[in-house]
């Protein structure tokens, strides 16, 4: 029975992914931020046994909540985190030609989170930093993409200027000749000029729009699972009082590195390293863990499943140094483009004599701003 419980998400993934969505359709709808947004502060506070951090494109703002419905009751989510990117704000104030030089800055986000653990009477606050240091799927950096776009822009600009000069020449001997000002709103001949301009350029523009769409689709299909490296760091402080005040103490530090690479044309393979130092509240000692995780995703942008294996070395003064391992599987899906649900199920083998492997099931909500919305207008 336990085995069936663990396999349920995988069966669901397989049935949805393989039977209802063809891979060709999937490739067409994939976005470049294939995995759901992850926030180091939330991960550091959470109880999810997986120690991998997902690669995700830096967004203006993202939120994460732990479940607000448990054991048949609606509750205030005990864990909450907010992620924002100062670099994105900076990006709108600088020329794009220095993007590569300041790549890491633009692609860094800061997350802040809180957690209330009623059972342990522990309040925690976390601060995290997430940085994408390398990404082959970034359109602002990709030379081929940039050259193709600039070629189209040059063609369009030349065409517009040719038409502009022709119209100015045709009307040079009017009582009030057409001028550049007419191309700006408010000019004397603005409406006449727009009509003349539109009739000459509309078809060409529609064609160029299709070429741009096609270029973007091809780029996504080719690069949605490109190689990338993400690093993240988080610190957690906690206290056992009802109010977060000066009695906060260091609780946990976590550091992640995730390398992502294509897994055939239809999936993405993540290899993650994680190191963490956490306070053991029972004896006030610190536990140092180091994990190596391997996760494979298959799916499309709306729904994807994964399987994961993880090995963890723990230097714990209570249980002595030991290895534990984890089998994890799950589903990630969007309800809307900006609302994500993540389900994880698996089993953790503690690697300690006398302690049985422990099955688990967790789920989280994550929110990003919709794609068409930006804080930095």
């Amino acid at each position, binding site marked *: 029975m336990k085995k069936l419980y663990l396999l349920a998400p995988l069966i669901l993934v397989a049935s949805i992914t393989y039977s209802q969505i063809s891979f060709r359709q999937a490739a067409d709808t994939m976005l470049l931020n294939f995995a759901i947004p992850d926030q180091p502060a939330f991960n550091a506070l959470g109880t999810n046994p997986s120690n991998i951090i997902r690669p995700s494109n830096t967004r203006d703002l993202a939120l994460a909540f732990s479940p607000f419905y448990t054991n048949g009751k609606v509750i205030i989510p005990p864990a909450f985190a907010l992620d924002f990117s100062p670099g994105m704000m900076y990006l709108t104030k600088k020329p794009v030609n220095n993007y590569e030089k300041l790549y890491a800055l633009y692609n860094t986000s800061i997350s802040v989170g809180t957690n209330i653990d009623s059972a342990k009477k522990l309040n925690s606050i976390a601060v995290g930093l997430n940085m994408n240091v390398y990404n082959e799927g970034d359109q602002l950096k990709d030379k081929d993409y940039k050259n193709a*776009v600039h070629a189209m*822009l040059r063609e*369009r600009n030349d065409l*517009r200027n040719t038409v502009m000069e022709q119209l100015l020449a045709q009307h040079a001997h009017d009582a009030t*000749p057409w*001028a*550049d000002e007419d191309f700006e709103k408010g000019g004397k001949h603005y409406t006449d000029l727009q009509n003349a301009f539109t009739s000459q350029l509309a078809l060409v523009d529609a064609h160029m729009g299709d070429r741009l769409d096609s270029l973007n689709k091809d780029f996504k299909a080719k690069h949605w699972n490109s190689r990338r490296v993400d690093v993240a760091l988080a610190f957690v402080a906690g206290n056992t009082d009802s109010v977060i005040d000066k009695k906060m103490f260091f609780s946990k530090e976590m550091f992640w590195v995730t390398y992502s690479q294509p897994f055939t044309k239809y999936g993405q393979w993540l290899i993650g390293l994680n190191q963490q130092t956490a306070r053991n509240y029972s004896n006030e000692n610190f536990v140092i863990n180091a994990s190596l995780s391997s996760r494979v995703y298959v799916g499309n942008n709306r729904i994807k499943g994964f399987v994961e294996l993880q090995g963890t070395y723990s230097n714990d003064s209570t249980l002595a140094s030991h290895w534990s391992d984890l089998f994890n599987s799950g589903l990630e899906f969007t309800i809307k483009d900006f609302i994500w649900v993540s389900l994880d199920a698996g089993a953790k083998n503690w690697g300690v004599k006398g302690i049985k492997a422990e099955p688990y099931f967790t789920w989280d909500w994550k929110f990003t701003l919709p794609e*068409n919305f930006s804080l930095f207008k």
Partner: protein
Amino acid sequence: MTTVKFDPTKGPLKVCFDFTGPFFADYTYKLREANSNALADGPKPGDNKNTQDDCYLLPTPVEQNDGRKIVLSTDFVSPPAQKGMAYSIVATVSQNGTSIGSDTDSGTLTGDFQDSLLVIFLQKI
């Protein structure tokens, strides 16, 4: 259209174009004769691919630029991921290294082709 006044007794005029925001742009710069569509300079194509300044010195003697128009026609587009972010295109005229006026076009990136036209009318003091 913006009017920029210059001192005909001072040094040469220079116009610089700045493109800020996550978008790709190709432009054409022209300098039109006073009261005419004939060109005094240009058309000169350029883009925001590299980090070199997009600056052009206007013809001398300085006084002959009275009544001329600087025209900057730009086509630009952002990748889909940067849709919704802000853009700004600025043409700044300077004399003796000091800015004497500018014209700006700013707005929101749509992810589709966009275009912009800045016209600066030069007038001697």
